[in-house]
């Protein structure tokens, strides 16, 4: 067990193992994404209330779910980096932010597009939607802060502090926005009742959620590999690797 943690802290080992994992995981991910999308778009029956526009659910919900989960991954990595001073956690945290931001963006855009045919408007100030927007800002904050630091080791630490502060705030933000909405405004627009979801819609949705989790994992590993190389550019193993790839 301890030796495993020890290895986790070793950049060349992590670089190698991530490469191996990716070799198998990436094709699976792409397959799952394509299969899920084709299934969802072409092979399911339309929703009886929303018609064909509901097919957006197969990308909207997975993106939203994974974007939210991504923040917790990032914050945990940040905590590990600060508490145990583990360099690799730092790198994982840094690598989460752009992926999370991109997925949040997807959730927002697909939601907005979905809103037009169903609600007749691109945007409403619904609790969940608003907190998703705030999540995007939190992600962008981490990305921007990292970019603004020249000393990347310090940048990692700064982002770790920021993401931890964000973690304390995410539940507060979520609760407060939720509560704010219910206070002011009798919900004139509601998400579709999810309880009645039909298995024929559920299975492709579950597939897509899984695919997005896999996508997140793959992108995270790829980003980490690139980052490891950059941080370890002075070491012998990176130089050897680079010379070999020439």
């Amino acid at each position: 067990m301890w030796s495993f943690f020890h290895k986790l802290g070793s950049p060349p080992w992590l670089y190698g193992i991530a490469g191996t994992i990716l070799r198998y995981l990436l094709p699976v991910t792409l397959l799952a994404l394509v299969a899920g999308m084709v299934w969802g778009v072409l092979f399911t029956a339309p929703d009886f209330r929303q018609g064909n526009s509901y097919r957006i659910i197969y990308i909207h919900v997975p993106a939203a779910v994974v974007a939210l989960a991504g923040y917790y991954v990032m914050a945990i990595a940040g905590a590990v980096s600060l508490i145990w001073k583990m360099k690799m956690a730092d790198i994982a945290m840094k690598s989460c932010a752009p992926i999370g931001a991109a997925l949040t963006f997807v959730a927002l855009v697909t939601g907005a597009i979905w809103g037009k045919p169903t609600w007749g408007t691109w945007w409403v100030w619904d609790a969940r939607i608003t907190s998703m927007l705030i999540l995007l800002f939190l992600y962008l904050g981490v990305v921007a802060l990292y970019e603004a630091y020249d000393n990347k080791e310090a940048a990692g630490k700064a982002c770790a502090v920021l993401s931890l502060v964000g973690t304390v705030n995410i539940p507060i933000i979520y609760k407060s926005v939720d509560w704010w909405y219910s206070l002011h405004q009798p919900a004139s627009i509601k998400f579709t009742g999810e309880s009645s979801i039909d298995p024929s819609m559920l299975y492709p949705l579950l597939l897509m959620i899984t695919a997005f989790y896999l996508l997140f994992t793959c992108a995270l590993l790829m980003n980490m590999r690139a980052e490891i190389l950059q941080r370890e550019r002075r070491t012998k193993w990176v130089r050897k690797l680079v010379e070999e790839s020439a």
Partner: protein
Amino acid sequence: MNAPSTPQFCLRLLRRQLVLAIRRPIEIGNPLLFFAMVVALFPLGLGPAPDKLADFAPGILWIIALLSNLLTSDSVFRSDYDDGSLEQLLLSPQPLYLSVLSYIGAHWLVTGLLLALVSPLFAVMLNLPAAGIAALFASLLLGTAVLSLVGGIGAALTVGLKRGGMLISLLILPLYMPVLIFGSAAVKAAVIGAPAAPYLAILGAMLSLAIALAPVAAAAGLRISVDA
């Protein structure tokens, strides 16, 4: 000559920050003038129908308080970083948590507290019903303290950046939002005759949390950003 006790040192810091603020008279008066001018902007921009304004007064006043806090947060550690005082503070044997708290406390005294004190005046200018004024005052008192604390984290993380620009607003505005929600809700509740106490209690809870954690984060941020 022996090292000062920690409380003494913190008082000294607080006094120093306050004197610095007072030496630039504009720094003290400015949040207020800013408040006044933006209060004047709203009727200009939105149209002066008094009933509409009264409806929105709690939200507007709170948004202005938030913006004026945002505008000044960046300066909490900035000049000390620029002239090298911050390095000295980091090397000092005193607990950084308390030093940071003194800086933030001074910031709150010259922005948040002052703002809360004059807010009734502006509330009247925006036709806020009298019932809401006490709640406005109390919520600003508590809420701006949270804002200053959270702003201190952002200021600490960005103070050393050459290429930071206005990064701080991106970092802290999302964190400001819960305060805005509960602050304006407290006033709204009071206006319609509902009890404002629960909202104030939540603001109080946020403040306790922020006092406990924000200086820790800000202190860590300072140590990191002198190395940016």
